């Protein structure tokens, strides 16, 4: 396996764009990325697209060549990767594998989702397709309700509280308020978070991420060729994907995600680092409880203490382990297929010192964790400037 570098990144502001179609989102991010990496469309040897439910949201299928050809990329393999909310991460993992193996030298990865063209009840229904439709979904579970059941169990076993969950939302909204690309740039108070209308108890409106449109893209290249294209290559030190049961009721313990632990372990091994070495991270806060469980599964804090640790401020930008400095899915927005690729773009912005008001001082080694469904897929990536 040969070392891989990221030479270009491009993302757009996330939000609700009623006048934009799915393809135009992918093209905007793709063009920005190619420009950033100083690569022309004819140099791209493969195109990997992360997209969860384009056909359900928009009716359009066969999305990878639909977008790649609009970018001027011809003839090469163009493939869509679907792993629920980890679709973007999965596209990134497979692109990395293809470059690391020596199969290709220049691979463009994009993630895209166009969600706001459907009413909320229909969006809820489409998202539920990432669960077990023959079991839990048929019984009336929604994605918020699956994570609500995880939260209830975490509260029962470890004493996690509503205030701990709210602390995640308050922090991520404060972070996102500084992010010009965030969907909801709005600071919220603890009281607002705690008193929001219930979605699935104990989760309220501010415990849930947003329904957004958006896209993001990155460009991968063997590390030894990267400096021919950019002065600011970022090393991809470790990437791993893992899987687990789709149905929540099949997991022996729903307060931890084995796929996250497995992907993290493999990514740490590949990078030759441990959780203590990671200086900052973008984690998959589709719901506030998911960030708390991620802190524990990634080994940043002991099991059961993720909520307390958050409430004490250790995951704020000024804390020992800044988490979701971009605002996370919570405030930045969660266009499902774009999320995993956007997380990589956020790490890159920090490592390249291009994060503006969000810029951290300890920015040399970052981790992204992208979760699919209620833990059935996970991609963990470690990037650095070494």
């Amino acid at each position, binding site marked *: 396996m040969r070392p891989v570098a990221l030479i270009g990144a491009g993302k757009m502001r996330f939000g609700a764009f009623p006048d934009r179609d799915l393809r135009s989102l992918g093209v905007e991010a793709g063009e920005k990325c190619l420009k950033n990496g100083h690569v022309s469309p004819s140099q791209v040897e493969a195109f990997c697209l992360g997209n969860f439910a384009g056909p359900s949201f928009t009716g359009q299928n066969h999305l990878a060549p639909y977008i790649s050809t609009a970018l001027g990329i011809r003839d090469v393999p163009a493939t869509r990767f679907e792993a629920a909310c980890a679709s973007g991460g999965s596209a990134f993992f497979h692109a990395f594998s293809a470059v690391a193996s020596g199969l290709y030298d220049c691979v463009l990865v994009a993630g895209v989702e166009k969600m706001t063209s459907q009413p909320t*009840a*229909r969006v809820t229904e489409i998202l539920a397709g990432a669960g077990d439709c023959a079991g839990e979904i048929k019984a009336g579970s929604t994605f918020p309700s699956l994570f609500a*059941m995880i939260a209830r169990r975490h509260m029962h076993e470890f004493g996690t509280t509503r205030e701990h969950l709210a602390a995640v939302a308050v922090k991520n909204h404060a972070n996102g308020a500084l992010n010009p690309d965030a969907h909801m740039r709005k600071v919220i108070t603890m009281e607002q978070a705690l008193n929001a209308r*219930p979605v699935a108890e*104990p989760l309220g409106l501010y415990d849930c991420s947003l329904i957004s449109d958006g896209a993001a893209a990155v460009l991968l290249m063997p590390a030894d060729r990267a400096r021919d294209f950019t002065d600011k290559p970022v090393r991809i030190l470790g990437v791993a994907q893992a899987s687990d049961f789709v149905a*929540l*009721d099949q997991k022996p313990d729903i307060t931890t995600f084995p796929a996250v632990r497995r992907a993290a372990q493999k990514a740490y091994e590949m990078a030759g680092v441990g959780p203590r070495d990671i200086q900052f991270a973008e984690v998959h806060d589709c719901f506030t409880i998911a960030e708390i469980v991620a802190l524990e599964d990634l080994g940043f804090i002991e099991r059961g203490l993720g909520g307390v640790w958050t409430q004490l401020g250790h995951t704020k930008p000024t804390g020992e382990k800044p988490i979701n400095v971009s605002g996370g899915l919570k405030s930045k927005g969660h266009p499902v297929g774009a999320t995993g690729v956007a997380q990589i773009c956020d790490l890159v912005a920090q490592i390249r010192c291009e994060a503006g008001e969000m810029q951290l001082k300890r920015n040399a080694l970052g981790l992204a964790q992208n979760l699919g469904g209620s833990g059935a897929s996970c991609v963990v990536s470690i990037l650095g400037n070494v």
Partner: protein
Amino acid sequence: MIGTVYTETVVHLAPEAFAKDVPYQVVIVALEDGSRVTGRMAGDRVTIGDLVERVAVRDGVPFFLKASSRWTNVLFT
């Protein structure tokens, strides 16, 4: 069929198919044989650890009722 509530939630925002039932309680129940199943509560709300009894299966979905004190007495006295 008797089981204990492993976890639960009350759903307030649902897809159209379930909108008429809102708010409703979804439970994961640990059954006597050690397996777990996701189902719906009929009647009283329950919390983790409560005993429940499966009273119906509609379209493959189990519906549970909080177990009566009669059952509690049989199992724990």
